[in-house]
């Protein structure tokens, strides 16, 4: 038997010891039972209730019949005084331009005379390249690539490093 069961048995044993039934308590109950008022029959109670309802119904003031409703008189047709006045002339306000042009003051431009360019002296042919000039002119007439041909001619004429600087 586990400790728990032992403890449960101890508790049951303690609770088993009921104090002896009190005889005087039983006598008191017997007296109460003898002195208990017998249950009232519901019949006299219901009869009294019905009588009370009948009396109150008999004494209640009778409800008078409702009087006839007054006849409705014809009412004049409603006319609005506001509508009788002449309507004011409606004039729409002048529409404001949506966009306004803004004039910005421009500074006065004074034309300056363009200075004349100084005359550039004609380039001089490099002597040892003169032999290429006819071929360059022939290529000029046949080729389409003007820029390359122009630089080639320039190289022939003047600049020793034209091809490099271009």
């Amino acid at each position, binding site marked *: 038997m586990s400790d728990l069961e032992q403890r449960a048995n101890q508790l*049951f044993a303690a609770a088993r010891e009921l104090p002896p039934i009190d005889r005087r308590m039983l006598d*008191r109950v017997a007296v109460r039972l003898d002195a208990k008022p017998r*249950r009232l029959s519901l019949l006299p109670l219901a009869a009294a209730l019905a009588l009370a309802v009948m009396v109150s119904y008999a004494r209640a003031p009778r409800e008078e019949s409702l009087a006839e409703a007054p006849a409705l008189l014809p009412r004049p047709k409603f006319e609005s005084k506001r509508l009788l006045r002449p309507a004011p002339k409606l004039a729409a306000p002048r529409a404001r331009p949506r966009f306004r042009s803004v004039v910005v003051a421009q500074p006065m431009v004074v034309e300056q005379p363009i200075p004349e360019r100084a005359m550039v002296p004609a380039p001089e042919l490099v002597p040892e390249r003169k032999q290429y000039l006819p071929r360059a002119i022939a290529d000029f007439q046949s080729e389409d690539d003007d820029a390359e041909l122009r630089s080639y001619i320039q190289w022939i004429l003047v600049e020793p490093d034209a091809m490099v600087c271009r």
Partner: protein
Amino acid sequence: MVRTLEVAFATERLDLADVYRAHAPSVARWAARLGGPHAEIEDLVHEVFVIVERRLPDFRGEAGLTTWLYRITENVVRHQRRKNRLFSWLLGDRATEHERSEAPLPDEALERKRSIEQVYRILDRMSEKYRTVLILHELEGLSGPEIAELVNKKPATVWVQLHRARALFLAELKKEIG
């Protein structure tokens, strides 16, 4: 007295006074057992016999008189416990405060009182059928067939309920002890 009652029952002259004289102690004991330490035994016994008086003319003897009285007692105690639970829920524990305010008891009596309160505290957490059979078996000392006759059930049913009730009691006791 029982013989007189049997004769009276056989001749259909069952009187409340006779029933009370023969069975009031049993009813008081059942009420004390089922009601627990805080039950008002006097009120319970009075209530039981008020019902007995009202229903005695309709008693046909289909069940034994003891069984009939026990059922009335069980119903009255159950009703009273429900009412007490409602009041304690509504008013807190004021219903049992007068018990605590009594003069201090000697140690042994105090220990016994605590044990009884612990037993009923655990029993009150159990369902009504397990509580009833455990009380009748462990506290009242009735055997399985006696309980079966009293609660109008088969003995096998009572034994099963007793087994489960005891297991439940041990589980709840384990929770309390921790």
